[in-house]
């Protein structure tokens, strides 16, 4: 996720102080990973250097730097382009899951037991996300759904692989 573009997008709504930007970022996109203040101000500094935002005059007050940042036309165009472009699909072809199954088969270990453990662990996480979806706000539910669909995709792969272990074992050992 691009922090500079997300901050730029938030500034496209209205000019804002670094502190308020951080608060909004954390509230919508942080999800347990708050943005450090240092990163907010260094990012704003780079965006200003590149002509994407304009810092206002320093305002008096205690605490960290009090400057109101506004987006430039160039910055606005960049947000516009970013929001209209699809992201690169990530097929996760080099997963640890895949490596563990193949290595288990190569070493004659029980890949089935590993897959059962992984299924159980995935389902445990799905239960947590389902609970979050049931009890959380609509934004939490949206994120939980995103996580649930990805975990479900993994589970379908786990089930398919479980059903093919015999054939896979022959392919890996030959």
């Amino acid at each position, binding site marked *: 996720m691009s922090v500079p573009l997300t901050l730029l997008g938030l500034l496209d709504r209205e000019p804002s102080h670094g502190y308020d930007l951080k608060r909004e970022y954390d509230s919508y996109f942080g999800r347990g990973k708050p943005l450090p203040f240092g990163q907010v101000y260094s990012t704003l500094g780079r965006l200003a250097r590149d002509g994407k935002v304009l810092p206002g005059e320093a305002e008096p007050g205690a605490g960290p730097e009090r400057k109101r940042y506004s987006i430039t036309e160039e910055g606005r165009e960049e947000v516009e382009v970013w929001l209209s472009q699809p992201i690169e699909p990530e097929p996760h072809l080099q997963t640890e899951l895949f490596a563990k199954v193949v290595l288990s088969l190569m070493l004659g270990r029980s890949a089935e037991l590993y897959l059962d453990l992984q299924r159980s662990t995935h389902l*445990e996480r799905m239960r947590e996300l389902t609970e979050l979806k049931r009890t959380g706000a609509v934004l939490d539910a949206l994120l939980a759904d995103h996580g649930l669909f990805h975990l*479900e995709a993994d589970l379908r792969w786990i089930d398919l692989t479980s059903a093919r272990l015999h054939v896979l074992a022959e392919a890996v050992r030959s």
Partner: protein
Amino acid sequence: MSTDDSLPMIPMESCILGARSAVLSFGETPALRGANISVTRGEILAVMGPSGSGKSTLLHCLAGILVPDAGETWFEGRRIDTLGEQERSALRRERFGFVFQFGQLVPELSAEENVALPLLLGGMRRTQAISEARTWFERLDLEGMEGHRSGEMSGGQAQRVALARGLVARPEVLFADEPTGSLDSLTGEVVMELLTQMARQQGTTVVLVTHEARVAAYADREVVVRDGKVAALDRASR
């Protein structure tokens, strides 16, 4: 093999429902090959597994619809595989509720008559049974549908009516076999949310057969049936 050969025998007297070494074949085709399972009172248990793994057969055995060729099935500390058809039928009518994939509402009856059916079969007077049935329509967001027949309802509405029918007699165990299998994912989630919410409110134990992980995630625990056996990996025993 991570199936249940090595599982310790679970004392069937301590759980509400269970099967021990259940074996069942349809003609030459084995469906259960020694399945062990125990269900704790009040829990929502998802039974997962690929098509043809035996998960629905296991549910039918636990519900006393089918009787295993060998092995045992238990309910509240007593064997049910040794009961006669009449006793098992009474058990299903009085203690169990059912929800199936395609609702299976009686098409000639209105929605409220469908919901009232288990109460009528239990001997309740018609006016009282209908009145009891009607209380479910608001709880399941079905107000105004009382007089509709199944052909006049969407799949999601019909399945919610089927859910009300499954729970109206306050069964101790609700057996749900792919209850969202005929619904789109959003409607399916509404049904699952209501099913789990109502079951928890009533303290009903639920045995939920599903092949969908998103549906299983509404349960407290899951077991996987593979080749007619319950896989040994079970979080309760880890």
